[in-house]
């Protein structure tokens, strides 16, 4: 499909109308989303009105912005004023937020055309979208396979060619893993680089919003639009907005790349082969590549599956049938809360709430939560030490290519292992990008991952651009 950058250029030049682009996106969704179920809600009338306003601005000689007329889709855990925002949970069915997420405000200010809301694992807890209360999304490249998750709908919407840009959220890999499974670019920026205002909280110290795109340049441009300090998010970085496009053409001559063997541990043969091929491509482009073992990274899974549920158990306490969402009426308020939460949450969300409550409870706090927080320090220090020797780390995004529906639903631990390679970047707050690099014998894409130190999002873009070139 045409890249966002090319579409915006054509719209700004008056060569294409935003309306025709929007109509084409809506038509494509109409044609195929009945099968794929990437979208939970399509904002047809609003999108067409918005596109017409952009065309009118161009007509008047104004510049609508760097994403002029570009259709975008938002994961349904991002607040859209007056439009349903469900987090794929029954407990928020029918809720209409009274405000927009900052990322949406910024996309619109840059000329983008929001098309609708995409499916996810309930409250972003999952790796396949099978935990959505409204049914799973199918992988556009093979509808018998999952698209990954939790941002599976956003990944599928780009992979299917519905939109050139979508947004997801990444708490333990929820952008990068579905990007790898669907063969698109997905980036989790540094913690704090993008405002979380209006992102429904899952694990606040780990959550970060980022883009799905078909090209690395589109990812850079989208991050430049949505990034930067926001007074509405106290954890957003005070630094100026990300400047990433400049990193696109730098090449990797002289760059020190650590091929991280821990990000290949247990991977399938094709995933290992493609990641090594990516390393060879960087070497051929002038980088120095050396293998590095960071065994602390393997501890990330345990730390994550204590910390994220602990934060979630606290964040999801707000769904009690009082201020928003669904209520199951009972005479007494505590009974109403219990009945509401029992009916409103799905199995995975309940599992994580209980796990987190347990990890935080008296007698277990030090052994589980406290120990996990210290492990987080251990992993961050190990990564910091590696970045004394390397500019970036390279590894696989996921241990395997996309798996089939039902493969991992019976055993939560097997599903959690999908996040093994993506979790360390969340724990450290570092940026990481997944780019497609070849495919397996069935044609399913392999994603390779570029990790960089905190606030060096530019290096992810720099290296990913070279891998994209080598893969084409």
């Amino acid at each position, binding site marked *: 499909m045409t890249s966002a950058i090319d579409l915006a250029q054509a719209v700004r030049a008056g060569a294409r109308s935003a309306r025709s682009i929007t109509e084409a996106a809506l038509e494509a969704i109409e044609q195929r989303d009945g099968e794929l179920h990437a979208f939970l809600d399509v904002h047809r009338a609003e999108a067409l009105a918005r596109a017409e306003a952009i065309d009118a601005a161009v007509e008047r000689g104004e510049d609508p912005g760097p994403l002029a007329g570009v259709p975008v889709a938002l994961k349904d855990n991002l607040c859209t004023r007056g439009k349903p925002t469900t987090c794929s949970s029954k407990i928020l069915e029918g809720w209409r937020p009274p405000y927009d997420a900052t990322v949406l405000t910024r996309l619109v200010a840059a000329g983008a055309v929001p098309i609708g809301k995409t499916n996810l694992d309930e409250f972003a807890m999952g790796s396949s979208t099978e935990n959505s209360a409204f049914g799973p999304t199918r992988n556009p490249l093979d509808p018998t396979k999952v698209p990954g998750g939790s941002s599976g709908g956003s990944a599928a919407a780009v992979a299917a060619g519905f939109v050139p840009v979508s947004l997801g959220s990444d708490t333990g890999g929820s952008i990068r893993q579905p990007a790898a499974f669907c063969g698109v670019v997905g980036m989790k920026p540094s913690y704090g680089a993008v405002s979380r205002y209006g992102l429904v909280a899952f694990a606040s*110290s780990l959550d970060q919003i980022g883009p799905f795109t078909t090209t690395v340049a589109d990812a850079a441009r989208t991050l430049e639009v949505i990034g930067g300090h926001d007074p509405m998010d106290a954890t957003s970085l005070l630094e100026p907005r990300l400047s990433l496009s400049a990193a696109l053409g730098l090449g990797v001559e002289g760059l020190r790349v650590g091929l991280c063997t821990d990000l290949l541990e247990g991977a399938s043969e094709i995933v290992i082969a493609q990641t090594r091929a990516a390393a060879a491509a960087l070497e051929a482009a002038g980088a120095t590549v050396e293998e590095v073992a960071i065994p602390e990274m393997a501890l990330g899974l345990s730390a994550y599956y204590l910390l994220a549920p602990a934060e979630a158990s606290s964040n999801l306490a707000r769904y009690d049938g009082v201020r928003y969402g669904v209520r199951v009426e009972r005479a007494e308020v505590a009974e109403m809360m219990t009945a509401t939460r029992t009916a409103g949450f799905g199995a995975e969300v309940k599992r994580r709430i209980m796990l987190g409550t347990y990890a935080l409870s008296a007698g277990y706090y030090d052994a589980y939560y406290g120990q996990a927080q210290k492990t987080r320090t251990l992993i961050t220090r190990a990564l910091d030490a590696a970045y004394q020797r390397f500019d970036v780390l390279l590894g696989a995004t996921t241990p395997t290519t996309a798996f089939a529906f039902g493969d991992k639903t019976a055993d939560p631990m097997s599903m959690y292992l999908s996040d093994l390679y993506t979790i360390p970047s969340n724990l450290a707050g570092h940026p990481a990008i997944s780019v497609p690099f070849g495919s397996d014998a069935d044609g399913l894409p392999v994603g390779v991952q570029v990790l960089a130190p905190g606030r060096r999002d530019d290096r992810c873009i720099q290296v990913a651009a070279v891998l994209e070139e080598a893969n084409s």
Partner: protein
Amino acid sequence: MTEPAPITRDDVAHVAKLARLDLTESELDTYTGQLASILGHARDIAALDLHALEPTDHPYGLRNALREDVVTASIDRDELLAAAPSVAEGRFRVGRILGEAP
């Protein structure tokens, strides 16, 4: 660090009560097994000697985020209340909070 005792069915029932979740008998059985499996995986970090490390609760460390003390726009009360399941007199309405007849 000494290894914590394995999670029991009673623990799960207690935690569900704290989290205001009502579980069936069979759900209690399923969750006990699943939580035990996940916590079992966490034995790898429970066994580490990490006493010398500070815990991380935020990637870059928490700092105060201050702004000028001026009044800015906020969300309209009626718009917020419109999202609530039940309201009365400009407030969220709930059932009785004490176990007595009203």
